[in-house]
């Protein structure tokens, strides 16, 4: 009897456990649940986390993610509108917004990812093919801050955009959401992760970059030579200016002094006939003093004034 009660107890406990575990289910913070009865959804989705009750065995709990889910695009080689082949790698974040619809139309996440591939890859491809490369890369027509020397060369390679990366991303997201609205999911964000040139294009881009750099380098060199020449020219001009100005000043000073001296002399020597006569006489005497030395011979005529003086002295 004791043996029997033990076994019964165990069996009863086991069955009870099974029933309890079948009638209770846990909804975690990350999940939402739809209860189905033989595959038929019953009621609204349970999105609040916690412990819940259901009819055991009859009802099945189907769990769905409540979090942002990732979608990663297949890196695709696509030509842009201006015929540049680029690799486009995209990503998106999406969420199950209507678990019921989601459950009915997509079933599980694998199905959802496959549909998202169709929708987003398609829209991304269309968007890339419908826009120039610059539109996919730039977001604004922002004026680049640049070193002025390089600016004018580089600026001509900047294209003005009318749509821009941000808007294209948003457009793709909108279009995708329109197509996904009956699927119970919402694309919350769509972005281009990587955009890169296809291999052959990359080589021509490198060539272009190299030639652009060479142009800049040439410009620097010629600027250097030009500037050096300018400084040299300035130097020559400055030199001539300084020298000629000095000459002019010096000559002016000298001229003024000469004039002053002349005025002084004139005032003294020219004031009367006798002053003039005295000056002539004194100057002749000075001339004798300065011209005569021991190499000079003197021939004195007996008629000359000097001889008379000498004679007078002798006598």
């Amino acid at each position, binding site marked *: 009897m004791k043996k029997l009660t033990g076994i019964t107890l*165990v069996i009863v406990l*086991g069955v009870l456990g*099974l029933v309890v575990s079948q009638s209770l289910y846990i*909804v*975690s*913070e990350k999940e939402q649940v739809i209860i189905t009865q033989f595959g038929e959804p019953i009621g609204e989705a349970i999105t609040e*986390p916690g412990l819940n009750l259901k009819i055991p065995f009859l009802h099945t709990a189907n769990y769905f993610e409540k979090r*942002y889910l990732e979608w990663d695009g297949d890196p695709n080689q696509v030509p842009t509108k201006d015929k540049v082949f680029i690799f486009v790698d995209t990503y998106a*974040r999406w969420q199950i917004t209507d678990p019921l619809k989601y459950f009915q139309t997509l079933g599980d996440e694998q199905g959802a990812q496959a549909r998202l591939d169709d929708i987003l890859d398609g829209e991304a491809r269309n968007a890339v093919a419908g826009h120039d*490369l*610059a539109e996919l*890369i*730039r*977001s604004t027509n*922002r004026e*680049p*801050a*640049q*070193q002025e020397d390089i600016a004018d060369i*580089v600026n001509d390679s900047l294209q003005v955009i009318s749509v821009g990366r941000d808007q294209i991303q948003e457009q793709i997201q909108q279009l995708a959401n329109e197509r996904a609205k009956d699927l119970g999911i919402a694309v919350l*964000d769509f972005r*281009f*992760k*990587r*955009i*890169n040139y296809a291999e052959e294009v990359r080589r021509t*881009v*490198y060539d272009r*970059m190299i030639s652009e750099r060479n142009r800049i380098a*040439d410009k620097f*060199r010629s600027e*250097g030579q030009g500037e*050096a*020449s300018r400084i*040299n020219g*300035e*130097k020559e001009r*400055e030199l001539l200016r*300084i020298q000629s100005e000095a000459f002019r000043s010096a000559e002016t000073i000298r001229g003024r*002094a000469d004039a*002053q*001296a002349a005025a*002084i*002399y004139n*005032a*003294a020597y020219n004031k009367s006939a*006798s002053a003039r*006569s005295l000056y002539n*006489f004194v100057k002749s*005497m000075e001339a004798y*003093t300065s011209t005569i030395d*021991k190499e*000079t*011979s*003197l*021939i*004195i005529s*007996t008629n*000359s*004034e000097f001889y008379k003086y000498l004679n007078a002295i002798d006598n």
Partner: protein
Amino acid sequence: MAQEPNFEFNLPPQFEQITKNIRSIAIGFIALLMIFSSFYTVETEEVGVITRFGEYVSKAQPGLNFKIPFIDKVQYVPVRRQLKDEFGYRTTSAGVNSTYRKAGYGGESLMLTGDLNLADVEWVVQYRIDDPYNYLFKVRNPDETLRDISETAMRQIVGDRTVDEVITIGRAEVASEAELIIQKICDEYELGIKIEQLVLQDVNPPDPVKPSFNGVNQAQQQRETLINQARADYNRVIPRAAGEAEQTIQQAEGYALNRVNTSEGEVSRFNDLYLEYIKAPEITKTRIFLETMEEILPKMGQKIITDEEGNSVIPLLQLQMSGAKTTSSNNNGGN
């Protein structure tokens, strides 16, 4: 619970005794398990996030904590640890001399710039989990999501700048703007992550283009050299010329002073003489003449005195004295 019946069915006939033992063993085992699962330790850099039946209840701070066994669950989130995400390279061993590996991560770092050129941008995002609830429950794969966000944000910023800007003057701005965008998207996704810092590492032109970029630097240096040489030349010549000009002018000033002073001196002497001269002109002249003669005659070589008829000998004398200065007093009169 459901396992117990199975367990007992497989038992041999000494059933009763073992059941008794099993009971105490099981109770002891369960009691131990309950004690062990009631206490848990949260490390200093973590917080524990407690969920009860899947529902978030509270956060547990570092230290020893208690929870309801089997019902409460703890997840540990390292909120105080600074985490980092590297792009374009990986640190293979951190330390005093860290080593890095770049091969194979070119896809992360190579990106298009606004002028449709290519740049190789390597960066690291340092972040912290600041909201463990969001981090755990709002986004699946938050780490992968952060990587995606970082890559797209960096490309968006670089895509709006020229390659020169990215490589040279715009570096700091690229880092700060990208950081802002990453944080903005993180907040939008409720990722529970706080970006502490975004640091740009090597930002280079792609390898095939590097030499020509260096060429530009060289050309820039050459330009500076040429200009500096010209300036040096200028500085060598011009100040010296200015000094020389000053010298010329000073010399002229000197000349002027000399000229005026001389003239004034001479005139002063003359005037004084003149004053006396007017008083006795004839005798003054004679005196001066004779004084002059007295002074100069001793200095002369030959002195020859002839009469009127003797003029014919002069040519002969001149022959004899060729090379010597000849002064005739014939044309010099005392009056």
